[in-house]
């Protein structure tokens, strides 16, 4: 039975629950916007990284380079799109 529950994945799961609990702090405590957003950004991206490495086995074959390049590239462009859009649609007008 034990061999069906590899240590690495169980720890990963525990860690992701922990991250969720930390993120919930912004709901239960009265934090400033900056503090709250910092917590959310950190927990969300760490959580995503946990999924990527522990569960999705992103780095286990020779295609590791292609896969990580692909993910970083799309993440970079997605962030550019989000912040660029905010710049053009909201922040630019203040």
């Amino acid at each position, binding site marked *: 039975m034990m061999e069906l529950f590899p240590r690495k994945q169980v720890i990963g799961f525990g860690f992701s629950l922990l991250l969720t609990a930390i993120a919930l702090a912004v709901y239960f405590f009265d934090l400033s916007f900056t503090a709250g957003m910092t917590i959310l950004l950190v927990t969300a991206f760490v959580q995503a990284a946990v999924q990527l490495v522990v569960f999705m086995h992103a780095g286990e074959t020779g*295609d590791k380079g292609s896969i990580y390049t692909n993910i970083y590239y799309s993440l970079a462009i997605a962030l550019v799109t989000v912040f*660029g*859009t905010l710049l053009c649609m909201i922040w630019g007008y203040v």
Partner: protein
Amino acid sequence: MEFFERFAIPHPSAPIYASMVAIGLTVIAIVAGLTYFKKWGYLWREWLTTVDHKRIGIMYLISALLMLFRGGVDAIMMRSQTAIPENTLLDAQHYNEVFTTHGIVMIIFMAMPFIYALMNFVVPLQIGARDVAFPRLNALSFWLFFMGAMLFNISFVIGGSPDAGWTAYFPLAGNEFSTSVGTNYYALALQIAGLGTLMSGINFIVTILKMRAPGITLMKMPMFTWSALTANVIVVFAFPVLTVALIMMTMDRLFGTHFFATTNGGMDMLWANLFWVWGHPEVYILILPAFGVYSEVISTFARRNLYGYKSMVASMVGISFLSFLVWTHHFFTMGQGALTNSIFSVTTMAIAIPTGIKIFNWLFTMWKGKIEFTVPMLYAVGFIPIFTIGGVTGVMLAMASADYQYHNTMFLVAHFHYTIIPGVVFAMIAGLTYWWPKMFGFMLNERIGKWAFWFIAISFNVTFFPMFFTGLDGQARRMYTYSEATGFGPLNMLSFIGALGLAVGFALIAYNVYYSTRYASRNISADPWDARTLEWATQSPVPAYNFAITPQANSSEAFWDAKKKGHELFKGEVQKIHMPSNSGVPFIMSCIFFIWGFSFVFSLWIPAILATIGIFICMAQRSFERDPGYYISVKEIKETESKLRGA
């Protein structure tokens, strides 16, 4: 009766009725012809169900040429309407429809399939692969594109054409101001074609990353393959943006949401923003493969290896990333303030740097080369100065404060035609002429081809150069007419004359295809241009399995090395070759997508639901299907090879 009224054209005219009749007659003629010559089985077995990248490439090519004709007719109509002041050939509504469909057809349904035609045909051959990574998906990509194009093109005879410009800005594209179903066609047809393109993007990235023949490292890939890789990277990351934007547009128009409305919090500017987040990278999706074609053509006909290979690659990778950082320059005048505009102004100008590097590399490749002015080379050489004018005016437009003067004038129209026509259209014709013998086993006539080049190159400048002046004088784009007092008349007449010249040039190309099909010699070698890359190392026309033995490469010009430096391309014995089997599902699924799109356009919910179910059934079929493919035996390969060599 009420049910059928929705399919009527809101703004009919004699030419539209004439086209209806013409379309009807053409369809009848095609059906009758296929039946009479008993070609239905052939069509189904060899084309509709094919998964061969070469045949799919040729189908893309045929679609692109048809759409070039359609978009060209639109262009001629626009130029004739504006040839003289206060002209009444077209009314305002028709003019709106014509410039809208001209833009969409030329970008999405002409240029895109044209680059995919060349990529499909050439990329697997250049890297010595048997086919693309997912041949079946490739067929689906093509058929989705095709059905999207057909859906878009029936709009002008059923329900009315889109008329809000190819950018379809809100609130103009909302229900309030675009009351016909035209803009629904826009949303659905682009959605379907866009899905196909996204799948192609994934397919080609995987093909290029994983299926290269031994010896072809990333930095030993031919330049066209590199350009295909960078372009497809842009496709994969840009097209989802269009998907989302179109979903939101569809929901605004059909389900009464307020994404881009002017009420209840909606934000019309968001459409413009999302459209260009996709739209600007789209421009580079078109231009990068064109750069790839020029690189191949120039090094072949200058008889030199490409100058600055690494910097060429670096600049294309740079362009593919920068292309996502500049979109705001399409709406500098929307009011987002000096800081935002400055940021995007700088990134825009930055793109001129890698592009400039490429231009100089081509010039250095030709420097001291033994240049042979064949038709493809003429287009490549013609491209450099004309495109540079487009690039320089682009930098002018990139200056945000100056852009307030140029915005939405004919100056802009002249600028982007100066980039797209030499950049993309010239390249596609060059590529077509260059790879034609590989596709069809005979060459296009050089003399007619040169006449066509001179007609096109000169007429192009006659058509578009005057627009720089009228634009600076204040002639706005998309206006169906102007008064005599503006003084725009003579220059617009000049543009019209140029447009006629362009028509003659393209007609000459069509005539060349006809003439060469009839008279050109079939007795040509597999390498008629004395070229450098691997696609020329196999037979013409290319057998289904591409290469009897997988080639071994040692550089980006393995075939040249084989010819001149004694490099051995084909080592080892012929072995049986695994091939993917044909499938009718991509075609059927795309037909269902067509019905799906059509039902959404007219809000016919029951067929829409049925079509959705049909699409999912096709996907389920694919999931459960076990398709082992088939093998071509050694005997068969040897027979094919000796037959092709003998011919």
